C-alpha cells in the first residue's frame, strides 16, 4: 500500500455524488428510489461506512421543525435573525417545511428520537425564540443505519478516491477527476449530474493545540468542495461569514450546551455567572464569548457543577459515548469532573461551513449551484445553519432534482487537456527528489490564517496574509515533495487549504462592513444596511484570482418585524445572574 502507481481509469454514471458523509448518502438514496434505473455512484475520500461528521454518531437534531412545536414560518424567521438578515428564505423555508418527512424516514431506518411519556417528540428549547432541538437516544447508530440503507438500495460505493477537480463542458457539468489515496491512480468519472457533499472546510485555521488534525470538524473535510467549485467557476456565497464555535479548550469538541442546556447547564464566566442569554451558536453569541474572554472576565466555562447527580450522570452518558466518545478520556486524563468544577472552554479555529454558519457554495432551494447539473448540499452549501438534518434534507432535494435534470441531457463534452493538466498538477510533488513536505506547507498556511484572518479582522493584516499566502503558494508549486500516495493526498489537501485561505482573505476584504457578530467583525467598519444588505458572491476571475460581486437578498417570504430583528443582537445578560 501507499506506493505511487501509474494509471487512469474512466467510468461513466448518471449521477455522481462526491462525499458519502451525511448529505451524500441521502442524495443517493433519494435519487435511486426516484429512478431505480439510474446509475448512481457515491464516492468518498474515506470509507462511507465511517466517514464524515457523523462517523461515530450524533447527539440529536439541532434544527428540527416538528408540527406542534414549531412552524416553518417561525423557523425561517429565527434563522433569518440568527444569520443577521442575509438569507434567501426560500431555501430555509423549504427545508423547514419538508424536514419532518425526513425525520420520519430516519425513524424508519431505525434511528430513534426522544419521546416523552405521552409518546410525543421531546423537543427542547435552545434557540432564542423557538423550540427545535430533538435528542437521539441511539444517536451512535445513525451512520450504521444509513449505511444499511445504501447497501439495500445497491448504491455503487467507491471508497478512498479523493475528488480534486470538477470537469465542465458545454457550459454545464461533465464529471470529476479523482485520485486514489492509496495508489495515486486516477479515476475520471463522466457524469450527467454531480452532487457535491464534501462537508466543511475544517482545516482552515489552526487549532490552538497546534495539532493539525485536532479540528472541530472531521479532519478529512479539508475543503475540496469549496476549492473544486471555485476552479470550476461556480459562485461561492458569503465566505467572510466564518465558522467559529465555542468548544472545550484543547479537546476542541463541542461543549454541547445543546445537550446540557435543556438540563440546566450553561456557559459561564470565571465568576460562574451566566453572561449570554442563549447558548445557540451564532456570530452574535460568539462575539459575547470573545468579549468575555478578552475583557478579563474569562476563562469561559461550561458549568454543570450546580446540577443534581442524576442529571450530571445523564449528561455524561450522552456526551461521553455518542458524538465524540474520546471526550470522556480527555476529562479523565485531566482529572476534571463536571460534578466538582467548571470545564474550560475556548474559541475554535476559523473555517468555512454553512452547517453552523453561512459560508458555502451558492445554491437555491433545489440545491442547484450556478453551474447547470452541479448540486451542493450539507455543510458546504450556503443554506445557513443547516446542521445534520439540513444535510439530510437538502441532500434529498439535490438527489430528487438531479434525477429530473438527467432526463434531458447526455454527457457533456469536455476538454481532455483538462485531465492532462490536472494529472501534471497532482503528480508534480512526486517528480522531485526532495523539497518541502505537505505538512509544513499546511502548517504555515494555517498559522498565517490564525495570525492574520482570525476576527476581529483588520485590513492591513488581511493584506499581509495575502502576501504570505502568495509566498507559500510559490513554494508549494515549486518545491512540495511527497514520498508515497498517502502524502500525495495530504499535498492535495494542502493545496485546497491554501485556496480556501486565499478565498477567506479576499471575501473578508470585499465586504466593507461588520456583519454576523464575531464571524465578520471588521474593526474599521460599522454595520452598513444601506449598502451591504446583499450576498457577496466570489468566483474565479479571468486572472485566476478571486473576483466578487454583490447579489440582492431575495425578498423575504416571512416578514420580520422591526422589534424582532435585534433578538440575536442583544445576547448579553443585562445584570449577570449568580449561579444557583
Amino acid at each position, binding site marked *: 500500500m501507499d506506493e505511487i502507481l501509474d494509471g487512469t481509469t474512466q467510468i461513466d454514471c448518471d449521477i455522481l455524488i462526491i462525499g458519502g458523509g451525511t448529505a451524500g448518502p441521502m442524495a443517493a438514496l433519494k435519487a435511486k428510489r426516484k429512478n431505480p434505473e439510474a446509475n448512481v455512484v457515491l464516492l468518498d475520500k474515506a470509507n462511507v461506512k465511517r466517514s464524515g461528521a457523523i462517523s461515530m454518531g450524533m447527539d440529536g437534531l439541532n434544527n428540527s421543525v416538528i408540527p406542534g412545536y414549531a412552524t416553518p414560518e417561525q423557523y425561517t424567521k429565527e434563522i433569518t435573525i440568527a444569520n443577521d438578515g442575509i438569507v434567501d428564505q426560500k431555501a430555509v423555508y423549504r427545508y423547514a417545511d419538508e424536514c419532518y418527512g425526513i425525520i420520519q424516514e430516519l425513524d424508519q431506518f431505525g434511528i430513534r428520537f426522544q419521546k416523552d411519556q405521552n409518546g410525543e417528540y421531546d423537543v427542547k428549547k435552545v434557540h432564542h425564540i423557538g423550540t427545535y432541538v430533538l435528542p437521539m437516544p441511539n444517536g451512535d447508530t445513525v451512520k450504521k443505519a444509513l449505511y444499511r440503507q445504501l447497501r439495500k438500495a445497491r448504491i455503487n460505493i467507491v471508497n478512498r478516491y479523493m475528488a480534486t477537480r470538477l470537469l465542465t463542458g458545454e457550459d454545464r457539468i461533465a464529471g470529476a477527476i479523482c485520485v486514489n489515496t492509496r495508489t495515486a491512480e486516477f479515476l475520471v468519472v463522466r457524469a450527467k449530474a454531480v452532487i457535491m457533499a464534501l462537508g466543511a472546510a475544517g482545516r482552515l485555521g489552526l487549532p490552538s*493545540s*497546534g495539532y493539525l488534525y485536532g479540528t472541530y470538524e*472531521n*479532519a478529512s473535510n479539508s475543503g475540496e468542495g469549496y476549492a473544486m467549485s471555485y476552479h470550476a467557476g461556480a459562485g461561492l456565497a458569503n465566505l467572510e461569514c466564518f465558522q467559529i464555535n465555542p468548544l472545550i479548550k*484543547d479537546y476542541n469538541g463541542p461543549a454541547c450546551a445543546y445537550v446540557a442546556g435543556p438540563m440546566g447547564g450553561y456557559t459561564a464566566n470565571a465568576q460562574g455567572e451566566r453572561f449570554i442569554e442563549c447558548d445557540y451558536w451564532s456570530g452574535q453569541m460568539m462575539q459575547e464569548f470573545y468579549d468575555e474572554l478578552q475583557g478579563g472576565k474569562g476563562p469561559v466555562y461550561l458549568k454543570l457543577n450546580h446540577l443534581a447527580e442524576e442529571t450530571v450522570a445523564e449528561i455524561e452518558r450522552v456526551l461521553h459515548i455518542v458524538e465524540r466518545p474520546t471526550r470522556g478520556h*480527555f476529562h479523565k486524563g485531566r482529572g476534571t469532573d463536571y460534578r466538582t468544577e467548571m470545564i474550560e472552554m475556548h474559541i475554535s479555529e476559523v473555517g468555512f461551513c454553512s452547517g453552523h454558519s453561512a459560508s458555502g457554495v451558492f445554491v437555491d432551494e433545489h440545491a442547484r449551484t450556478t453551474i447547470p447539473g452541479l448540486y451542493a448540499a450539507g455543510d458546504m452549501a450556503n443554506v445557513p445553519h443547516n446542521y445534520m438534518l439540513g444535510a439530510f434534507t437538502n441532500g434529498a432535494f439535490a438527489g430528487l432534482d438531479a434525477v429530473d435534470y438527467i432526463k434531458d441531457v447526455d454527457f457533456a463534452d469536455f476538454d481532455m487537456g483538462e485531465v492532462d493538466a490536472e494529472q501534471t498538477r497532482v503528480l508534480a510533488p512526486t517528480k522531485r527528489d526532495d523539497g518541502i513536505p505537505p505538512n509544513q506547507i499546511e502548517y504555515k498556511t494555517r498559522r498565517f490564517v490564525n495570525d492574520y484572518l482570525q476576527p476581529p479582522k483588520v485590513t492591513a493584516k488581511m493584506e499581509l496574509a495575502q502576501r504570505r499566502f502568495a509566498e507559500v503558494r510559490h513554494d508549494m508549486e515549486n518545491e512540495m515533495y511527497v514520498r508515497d500516495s498517502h502524502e500525495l493526498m495530504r499535498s492535495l489537501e494542502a493545496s485546497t487549504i491554501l485556496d480556501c485561505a486565499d478565498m477567506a482573505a479576499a471575501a473578508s476584504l470585499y465586504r466593507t462592513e461588520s456583519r454576523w457578530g464575531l464571524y465578520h467583525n471588521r474593526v474599521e467598519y460599522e454595520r452598513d444596511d444601506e449598502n451591504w444588505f446583499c450576498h457577496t458572491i466570489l468566483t474565479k476571475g479571468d486572472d485566476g484570482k478571486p473576483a466578487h460581486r454583490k447579489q440582492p437578498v431575495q425578498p423575504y417570504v416571512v416578514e420580520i418585524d422591526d422589534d424582532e430583528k435585534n433578538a440575536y443582537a442583544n445576547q448579553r445578560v443585562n445584570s449577570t445572574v449568580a449561579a444557583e
Partner: protein
Amino acid sequence: MPLAQTSSIVPVVVDKALCIADKGCTVCVDVCPLDVLRIAASDDGTQTAYMKYDECWYCMPCEADCPTGAVTVNLPYLLK
C-alpha cells in the same frame, strides 16, 4: 536534502496479542476516516495493525469496530 526524522508519540495503540491481522483482518485500516493505520509484518512473520501516520481526529471507529478489542485510542499528546 534529506528530510528530518522527528519523532512523535502516536495516540492509537494496538495490542499485539489481540490483533488478528494474521487471519486477514483489516477492519481498523478500512474504517479510519484519516487513513492513518496500516498492517505491519514483524520479523517472525506475524502481522499487526499500527498507526503509521500521526494524523488522528481521535474519533474512534478503529476502536469501536475492531472485532477483538485490540485498539485503544488515546488523545494526541499536544491536546491531551
